[in-house]
């Protein structure tokens, strides 16, 4: 379609494609701009909290949601959106190829990106022992010793996954207690291959062309040097809120887009959903729910309904 879309959705993870599905049901002309289809859920092979499906891989869940959305025939552009501006009647979005699209409303579903530790050795040894995706690169550590750095639910899930290959997995966490869902925490504590090293920071990744050891901020078993074959960094994620920033939408101190009960942002006609929003519990089902709300509220807004 050329001309002005009713809604432009930026992002093609769980939230973006859920919004595309629902906008289709509401008969809105829909554009979805996506840099990398599937998004963050691709990082896990084991989703067991999507209602109605006891267990599914992240890849299959993402594919199912995308296929469902495509039933409603949204226009999909595979590109990064680099510029978003307010126009007289709506919004203009420009992608990295310089193409510009117009829409009357905007749903931001840009998710989040892996956060780095920003310590010496991290960039130099990336994929040479230092990794951020257990599902992709865990296979290289069969019968080896590895460290997962972080203490969140995602870090716990990465550690559990890595025990399939590794001989030993250390979870190195700066806090006192790992912050995982109780069900995942139970699994970690019951797993003999996993050992938690708490109240400890990693200061450096060291090695000559490949990771050989971590340098810790305090001794573990008498030494600050911690020998490992590989390390997986899972210390949380940062919201991809650059476009929201350009639009002057209100962000919280973490850079997440602030939304209300209707998935509305501080700018009329702009909605947000999923991991880019300031939701306290970032799970696929939460993002999908917010996406449906955002779609419905965009629909009402287009009908001139005031709240």
């Amino acid at each position, binding site marked *: 379609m050329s001309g002005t879309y009713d809604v432009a959705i930026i992002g093609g993870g769980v939230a973006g494609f859920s919004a595309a599905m629902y906008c289709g049901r509401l008969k809105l002309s829909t554009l979805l701009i996506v840099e990398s289809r*599937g998004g963050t859920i*691709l*990082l896990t*092979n084991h989703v067991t909290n999507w209602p109605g499906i006891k267990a599914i*891989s*992240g*890849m299959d869940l993402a594919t199912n949601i995308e296929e469902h959305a495509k039933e409603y025939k949204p226009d999909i552009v595979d590109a990064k959106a680099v510029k978003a501006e307010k126009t007289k009647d709506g919004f203009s979005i420009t992608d990295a190829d310089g193409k510009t699209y117009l829409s009357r409303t905007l749903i931001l579903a840009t998710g989040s990106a892996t956060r780095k530790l920003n310590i010496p050795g991290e960039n130099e040894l990336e*994929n*040479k*022992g230092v*990794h951020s995706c257990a*599902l*992709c*690169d865990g*296979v*290289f550590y*069969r019968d080896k010793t590895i460290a997962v750095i972080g203490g969140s639910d995602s870090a716990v899930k990465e550690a559990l996954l890595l025990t399939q290959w590794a001989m030993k997995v250390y979870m190195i966490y700066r806090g006192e207690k790992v912050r995982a869902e109780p069900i995942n925490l139970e699994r970690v504590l019951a797993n003999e291959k996993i050992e938690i090293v708490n109240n400890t920071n990693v200061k450096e990744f060291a090695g000559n062309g490949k990771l050989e050891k971590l340098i810790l901020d305090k001794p573990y078993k008498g030494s600050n040097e911690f020998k490992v074959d*590989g390390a997986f960094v899972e210390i949380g994620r940062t919201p991809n809120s650059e476009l929201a920033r350009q639009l002057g939408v209100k962000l919280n101190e973490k850079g997440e887009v602030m939304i209300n009960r209707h998935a509305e942002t501080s700018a009329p006609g702009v909605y947000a959903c999923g991991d880019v929003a300031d939701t306290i519990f970032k799970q696929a089902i939460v993002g999908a729910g917010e996406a449906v709300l955002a779609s419905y509220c965009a629909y009402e807004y287009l009908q001139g309904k005031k709240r």
Partner: protein
Amino acid sequence: MADKKIIVYSAEWCPWCHKAIDFFKAKKIPFEVRDVGADQKYAAEVQQVSGQTGIPVVVIDKDVIIGFNQPAIKKALGLP
């Protein structure tokens, strides 16, 4: 393009490996998969070929492309 030798180093669970494989399948371009999870020989080989331990790695003749990097793959294949 038809006579270029294409190898995709991959593993069963690696999502971006599947995307790389789907890319060649969708374009009906013949390629060989080397599963580094199923065969230790390929795990060692991919490290030698690419100097790192991340997958997918796509080898197109002499071009070694790390990750599912569509622009680089298209360039190596001479596709628009």
